[in-house]
C-alpha cells in the first residue's frame, strides 16, 4: 500500500519535473512573470488602440505592438545566433558591429558620394540590400573561417570584428552621416500606408517562416546539432564540420543584413557607434533564455525566438518603469546572472540531490516494508 502511494507521488513529481525541465518552461515562466508584474504596475500597459499617426495613417499603437515591432531585429538575429551556438559551442559577439557595417554599406549605395538621397527607387534599395547582405555574409564567413579552420574560440575570434567593425562602418561612409529623405523608404521601418501593423513584424515573420521551411526540408538542423554534440563522430559519419560551421556563420551574416535593413529603415540614417549597440548581449541572452545549451548541441529554434521577444518585453517594461537606456545593461546583467545560475549544471545537480534526498527518505521506508 505504501508502495502504491509512493509510486503515485513519484509520478506526480515526475510530471512536475518534466514540466519544470521542459525547454519552454523558463521563457514562458519569465513571460508570465513579466505579464503579472506589468498587470500590477500598470494594467494600461496592455491596451492597444487605433490612432492616426503623423503621416495620416490609421495604425495600431500600444506597448504590445511596440514589443513585437522592436523585437523584430532581435528575433531575426536569434535565428542565426542559435545555429552558431549549436554548431560551434560559442557565440558571435560581433553582430552589432556587423549590423553597423551592413547598414553603412546599404546607405553608401543608396546615397552615393554626396550622402543625401531625396528620391529612392525600389531597384536601388534591392541592390543595396543584396550588396550589404553579401558583405555581411563575407564578414560572417571570415568569422567562421577563424573558428572552423584555426580552431579559435568563437567569442574570441569574433572579438576581432567587434573591435574593428564600427570603425570599418565609419570608414565605408567616410564618417559622414548619410541621410535618406524619401518618405517611402521609411515604410521599411515604419508603416506601409493602409496597413496598421508595423512592417518589421512582417519581415520577422517572413524570416521565421523561411527558417522553419529550411529546418523542415533540409538536414541543416540535424547536421548542426550533430556537430555541436560530437564533432569527431559526425565527421566520421561523413558530415563536414568545417563547412557547416562556416555556413552557420554565413546564415548569421544574412540575418545581420536583414536586421540592418530594418534598422536603417527605422532611422533612415546611421549612427556608427550607437546603432544596434549591445544587441549581441540580447541575442545571446535570447538563446540562453530559450533553454538552449550555450556549449553547443541540441537547439530549439522556437524557444530562441520566444526568448528574443521575452527580452524585448523586459526592455519595454524597464522603459515603462522610467529606466534610462544607458542604465538598462545593469538590470539586464542581473537577469542574465540569475538565468545562468539557474541553468548551471552544478546548481541543477544540487537541486536534484535535494529532490533525491526527499525521495530516498520515502524509498527507505518502502524498502523496510518490502
Amino acid at each position, binding site marked *: 500500500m505504501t508502495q502504491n502511494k509512493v509510486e503515485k507521488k513519484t509520478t506526480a513529481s515526475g510530471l512536475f519535473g518534466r514540466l519544470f525541465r521542459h525547454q519552454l518552461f523558463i521563457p514562458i515562466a519569465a513571460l508570465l512573470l513579466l505579464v503579472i508584474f506589468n498587470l500590477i504596475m500598470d494594467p494600461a500597459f496592455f491596451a492597444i488602440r487605433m490612432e492616426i499617426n503623423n503621416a495620416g495613417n490609421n495604425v495600431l499603437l500600444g506597448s504590445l505592438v511596440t514589443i513585437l515591432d522592436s523585437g523584430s531585429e532581435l528575433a531575426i538575429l536569434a535565428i542565426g545566433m542559435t545555429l552558431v551556438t549549436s554548431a560551434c559551442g*560559442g*557565440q558571435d*559577439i560581433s553582430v552589432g558591429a556587423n549590423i553597423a557595417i551592413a547598414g553603412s554599406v546599404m546607405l553608401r549605395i543608396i546615397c552615393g558620394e554626396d550622402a543625401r538621397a531625396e528620391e529612392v527607387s525600389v531597384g536601388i534599395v534591392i541592390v543595396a540590400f543584396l550588396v550589404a547582405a553579401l558583405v555581411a555574409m563575407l564578414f560572417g564567413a571570415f568569422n567562421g573561417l*577563424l573558428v572552423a579552420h*584555426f*580552431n*579559435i*574560440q568563437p*567569442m*574570441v*575570434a569574433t*572579438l*576581432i*570584428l*567587434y*573591435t*574593428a567593425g*564600427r*570603425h*570599418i562602418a*565609419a*570608414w565605408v561612409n567616410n*564618417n559622414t552621416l548619410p541621410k535618406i529623405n524619401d518618405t517611402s523608404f521609411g515604410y521599411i521601418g515604419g508603416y506601409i500606408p493602409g496597413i496598421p501593423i508595423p512592417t518589421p513584424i512582417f519581415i520577422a515573420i517572413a524570416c521565421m517562416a523561411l527558417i522553419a521551411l529550411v529546418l523542415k526540408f533540409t538536414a541543416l538542423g540535424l547536421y548542426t546539432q550533430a556537430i555541436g554534440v560530437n564533432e569527431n563522430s559526425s565527421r566520421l559519419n561523413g558530415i563536414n564540420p568545417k563547412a557547416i560551421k562556416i555556413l552557420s556563420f554565413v546564415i548569421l551574416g544574412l540575418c545581420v543584413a536583414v536586421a540592418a535593413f530594418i534598422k536603417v529603415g527605422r532611422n533612415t540614417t546611421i549612427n556608427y557607434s550607437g546603432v544596434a549597440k*549591445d544587441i549581441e*548581449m540580447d541575442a*545571446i541572452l535570447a538563446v*540562453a533564455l530559450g533553454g538552449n545549451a*550555450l*556549449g553547443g548541441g541540441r537547439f530549439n529554434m522556437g524557444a530562441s525566438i520566444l526568448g528574443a521577444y521575452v527580452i524585448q518585453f523586459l526592455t519595454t517594461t524597464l522603459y515603462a518603469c522610467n529606466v*534610462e537606456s*544607458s*542604465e*538598462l*545593461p*545593469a*538590470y*539586464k*546583467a*542581473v537577469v*542574465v*546572472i540569475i538565468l*545562468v*545560475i539557474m541553468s*548551471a*549544471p*552544478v*546548481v541543477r545537480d544540487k537541486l536534484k540531490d535535494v529532490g533525491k534526498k526527499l525521495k530516498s527518505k520515502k524509498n527507505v521506508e518502502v524498502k523496510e516494508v518490502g
Partner: protein
Amino acid sequence: MSEKKKTSGAPQMLGAKKQGMTDTNLLLVITIVVFFAMYLFAIVFLGEGFLKTQSFLDMLGTSGGLIITACGMSLVMITGGIDISVGGVVGLVTMCCAVNLDQSGGNIVTSMLIALGIGLAFGLVQGYLVAYLDIQPFIVTLAGMFFARGMTTIIHANPFNVQHEAFTEFRTTTVEIPGAGYVAEKTGKYIPAQVEVGVLVALLIVIILFCFLRWTKTGRNFYAVGGNKQSALMLGINVKRTKFLSHVICSVLAGIGGYIYFMHVGAGSPQNATGMEMDAIASSIIGGTMLSGGVGNIIGTLFGVLSLGTIQKIVGSAGLDDAWWTGITVAAMLCIFLVIQSIVIARKKKALK
C-alpha cells in the same frame, strides 16, 4: 588505483609543461622582435620623435592603467579563462572615485579603498560563479561588463573633471629619471625626463606578478590548471580555488588599473575606458598568452601593451589621423597573432602525434 593514475599522469604533465615552456619562449621572442622591429621602423621612417626618452615615457604614462589591467587579464587567460569585465570595472572605478572625491567629500585614501573594494567585489562574485558553479567565464564576465557599464551611468550620468585639490596635486606628481633627460638646443637648459607615479606602480606590479608566476607554488599552479585541468587535478592541485583566485586577482588588478587610469585622465565619465577590455585581451594575445591556457608571460604582456601603444602612435604620426585606422590596425594585429597562435598549437598537436 589512484597511485597508478598519478604516476601515469605525472610524465604527461611534465611533457606538456616542457612543450609549454618552449611555446612561451617562442611566442615571447616573436612579440619582442615585433615590438623592436616596429619601433625601429618608426624611428627610421617617421622621424626622430620616437627616439626621445620623454616621448617613450609619455606612451608609458598613457598606458599605465592598461598595463596593470592587461597583466590581470593574462593571469586569467593562463588559467584558461577570460575576463571581459575589466574595461567596465575600470570605468566604474573612475566614476565612483570621481564622485567620492568631488561630491561625497572623500579623500585620496577613501577613493583608493573604493577602487580596491569594487575590484574585489567583482572578483569574488565572478570568481565564484566561474570556478564553483562552473559557468562559462565569457558569459559571466560579459554580464559583469554590462553591469559595470550600467552602474556607471546610474551613479553619475555626465562626465566631469575632478576638482579635489589634494588629488589634483597627487595626480600631477611626476618622478624624474636621473640621466634620462636631454639638453634643449635653444636654451641650453637641462630638461629632465619625467614619468608619472602610475607608471612606476604598473612596473612594480609587472615585476611582482612575474616573480609570482615564475617562482611561487601558487603561480605554477596557474600554468598547470591552464595547461591540463585533468592532470592538475590528479596532481592534487585545487583547480577550483586556483581559478577563483585568478579571477579575484584579475578584478583587483582592474581596480588598481582603474585608479591609475583615473589618475592619468583625472575625470569621471561613462565613456572612460571604453573598449579597454579589448585592448587588454589584444595586449595579452600579442604578448604571447594563449587563449587555450597554460602558456603566457607577464613580460610578454608588457611588450604587448607597448606594441599597441607604438602602433597607435605610428598610425597617428603617419598622417592617418582618422580614428578608425587605429581600431582597424589593432584588430588586424590581433588577427595575425591569433592565427600565429593557432598555427603553433596545430604544430604542437602534430608533434605529439
